[in-house]
């Protein structure tokens, strides 16, 4: 059983690292500078025009902020026709929410990204850039632009990124340096060995 578990674990790690990490394929370039609005009661729906939907996008990230966010629905339309849609269940926490989408085989420019949610009591912050003048007056509940990013699987696997990830792990810590990754590998190998020893004790 232990051998089977260890082999399964190794295969799981190999398979996971063989996948491609999601990358931001397209962003509308809006900076997340301010919370230009806050919704705490009722249904909120808004659309942002002029977005570009890349081919194969598997998710869209919107700069909405909440502690226990409501269900968010996204619909991508072009000329009134629904191209793709997705939904994120309630309960998310972050300063942005990622909503899975059904990927399209082709890209589409000039699309409208529409999102809606039902806020009750707990506020949902709208983060991005504030609109000025007439544009703001035309949309009093939504006087700004959210950051919208479309995600899709990257071209390289985690294996191909291993050396750069290892390099990044060496930055920004106490005693930064190349030693951190080998140290982590040795320490986790020791954890695995000790847990295997415990597992062997079970059979006795």
């Amino acid at each position, binding site marked *: 059983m232990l051998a089977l578990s260890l082999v399964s674990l190794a295969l799981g790690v190999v398979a*996971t690292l063989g996948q491609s*990490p999601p990358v931001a394929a397209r962003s509308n370039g809006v900076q997340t500078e301010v919370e230009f609005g806050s919704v705490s009661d009722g249904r909120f729906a808004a659309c942002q025009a002029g977005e570009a939907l890349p081919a194969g996008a598997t998710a869209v990230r919107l700069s909405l902020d909440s502690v226990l966010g409501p269900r968010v629905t996204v619909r991508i339309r072009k000329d009134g026709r629904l191209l793709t849609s997705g939904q994120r269940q309630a309960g998310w926490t972050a300063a942005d929410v990622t909503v899975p989408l059904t990927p399209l085989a082709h890209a589409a420019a000039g699309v409208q990204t529409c999102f809606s949610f039902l806020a009750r009591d707990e506020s949902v912050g709208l983060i991005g850039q504030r609109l000025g003048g007439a544009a703001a007056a035309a949309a009093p509940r939504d006087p700004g632009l959210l950051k919208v990013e479309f995600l899709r699987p990257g071209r390289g696997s985690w294996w191909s990124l291993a050396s750069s990830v290892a390099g990044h792990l060496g930055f920004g810590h*106490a005693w930064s340096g190349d030693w951190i990754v080998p140290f982590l590998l040795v320490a986790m190998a020791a*954890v695995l060995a*000790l847990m295997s020893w415990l597992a062997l004790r079970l059979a006795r």
Partner: protein
Amino acid sequence: MSSVLEHPPRPATHPRGARRGGRLRAALARVPREAWVCALVACLNAVCWSFITPPFQVPDETDHYAYVEQLALTGEPPSSQAHGRYSADQTLTMEALHTNRVRLQPEDPAVFSPAEASELRRALAVSRTIAPRPTGAAGVAAAEPPLYYALELIPYELGSGGTVLDRLELMRLLSALMAGLTALFVFLFVREALPGARWAWIVGGGAIAVTPLLGFMSGAVTPEALLYAVSAATFYLMARAFRRGLTPRRAAAIGVVVAIGLLSKLNFVGLLPGIAIGAIVMVGRLPAPSRARLMRAGAVGLALAAALVAAAYASGAVSHSAFGTPEAAVLSLARHGSPLGRADYIWQFFLPRIPGTVDDFPGIFTTRQIWFDGFVGLYGWLDTTFPGWVYDVALLPAGILAALCLRALATGAGALRARIGELLAYLTMAAGLLILVGSASYTGFPQIGGAYAQSRYLLPLLALMAAALALAVRGAGRRWGPAVGVAVLMLFVAHDLFSQLQVIARYYG
């Protein structure tokens, strides 16, 4: 099956006149080797987490660091009235780390390039030239009791010649040691609570040692690291007293641990009702002549706990803020909202809504989405998650383990009935903590639906989780039990490993 729930004969008592040091050595020598291995694994795992998680990317770590710095510089705890910024060196370091930009925004990685690393090095060099000046502010940490922070003064002072990051990492390593204590006491609790099956202790202790949420939290600067250890120790001492009988020495030990818990983090208050029920049950079991002696023992324990806590409060070591005194905490909790509304909210905070009541969490199945999913994987500032399907897949092993645990309980119902008082004490300890967390969350409601909706707040109950895992393995029966035990241990190892990979992908990918 029932053997796992039944108490075996008591071990022989120590020979009279044994010296205290010798007794301690003998007690340590009786701790099984597997327990020490569990402690070592938990410690190593938390050390790994301490290097994987970027500085200040654990909930409220910025505030906890500020508390220790304030304590180191002034000898006094911070004031909850002070709403200023962090000290200059901490602020400079956080700016160079882009702490606030990275926090809550999964698309923003940690320090990512040689240029950013150089900028950080420059900032750290500048920060070393600044004489740290206390600001008196420590955010949400200001209301917490001082014991954990006082212990963290040791690594803080050890790193006083270094940078903020050096001190922070040394402080994280002390927390990692506390993870080892947590696993050790969890193992010992399972040994006392389920003494009939040695291998069940290994499964319980081993699984907890590599629980990723324990590693993540205990790999950071937070008083919860100490709270988990002292809660596990409390469960252990309770189980030991239930199994071997309440003596003055054991009562005093429980009293000391309760005092340490109360001086570690206020959440420990949630365990008190259960501890009190346990004490009543244990005293009630005794024959009348012994009862008076044990009542005195109970009074000794209570007096010890009260004296330690009172001394800390009287010396001003505990901040007198809105939540800084237990009486203020109770008053604050009592004045917000109606009792019925509060009770309904707390119920829904953990369990499915009762039909006919107002839905306080529309669209959210709290048991699953907040507590289960949060345990499966929610790291960083609650901004680092697995892909959605992982949480669905995790339901399968969790469901199997729950079913096996129920089977073991059903099969051992007779033995369970004989220990109903003990079970009641543990369940009250758990319920007390849940009510405390739910009640605290209710103070922010409805503006914030679940201010304390985080699985980490339930980790003081790790000992009970370990017992449930041990029972589940036992529920698999003699033939399959060991195989299921190995699978459980490896499942938790995999959970830990993939959690670390997910955090690495989020911050460094």
